[in-house]
């Protein structure tokens, strides 16, 4: 069932059909004191685990976002999803906020954990469980 998370040896990696069609970071969003950062901080502060994603946890609209939702759900982690497709300001701002060019982005207690590849790698190696336990969340 969770074979999807297993790392594939070179040459057999699963082909993804979903794309990460994000717009390049704009100059305005890269400004450190951009007002959207306050909104992002508010979102991140609302719950211990917050996932900025494309679509919603129930209906992800990107394969990478769906993979992170699947991992968190499998681990019974309560989280809030923020749909960046609903909000262009947050969609661009979140990339500048974390200096990370893509969505999804996972935050735990205000700390940026990583994108899809990192979350998947941490999950496979049991590090995600340890990390969440360390934060008092598991």
């Amino acid at each position, binding site marked *: 069932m969770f074979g999807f998370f297993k790392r594939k040896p*070179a*040459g057999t*990696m*699963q*082909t*993804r*059909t*979903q*794309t*990460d*069609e*994000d*717009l*390049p*970071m704009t100059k305005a969003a890269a400004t450190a004191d951009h007002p959207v950062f306050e909104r992002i901080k508010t979102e991140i502060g609302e719950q211990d685990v917050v996932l900025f994603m494309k679509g919603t946890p129930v209906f992800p609209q990107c394969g*990478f976002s769906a993979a992170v939702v699947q991992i968190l759900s499998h681990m019974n982690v309560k989280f809030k999803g923020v749909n960046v497709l609903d909000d262009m300001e947050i969609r661009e701002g979140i*990339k500048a906020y974390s*200096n*990370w*060019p*893509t969505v999804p982005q996972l935050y735990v207690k205000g700390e*940026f*954990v*990583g*994108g*899809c*590849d*990192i979350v998947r*790698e*941490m999950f496979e190696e049991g590090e995600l469980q340890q990390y969440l336990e360390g934060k008092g969340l598991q």
Partner: protein
Amino acid sequence: MAMDAREIESLIKQALPDAQVTIQDLAGDGDHYAAQVVSSEFTGKTRVQQHQMVYAALQGRMGGVLHALALNTSPPNA
């Protein structure tokens, strides 16, 4: 919009000269890649920092002309 695998490799090597870079074109469309990058410059860095170093090497192309690049980074012999 698409990007050639050799261009991705050369940009990464410009920033991380000792990097061993393995790139797969996942869908054969020049748009969905997986890259494995091994470099001594990753030693002592977190995964987030390692990925940020690769994204910086790509000079803003990630999330722009380069839609999907699954990354796996590590220091040598990790």
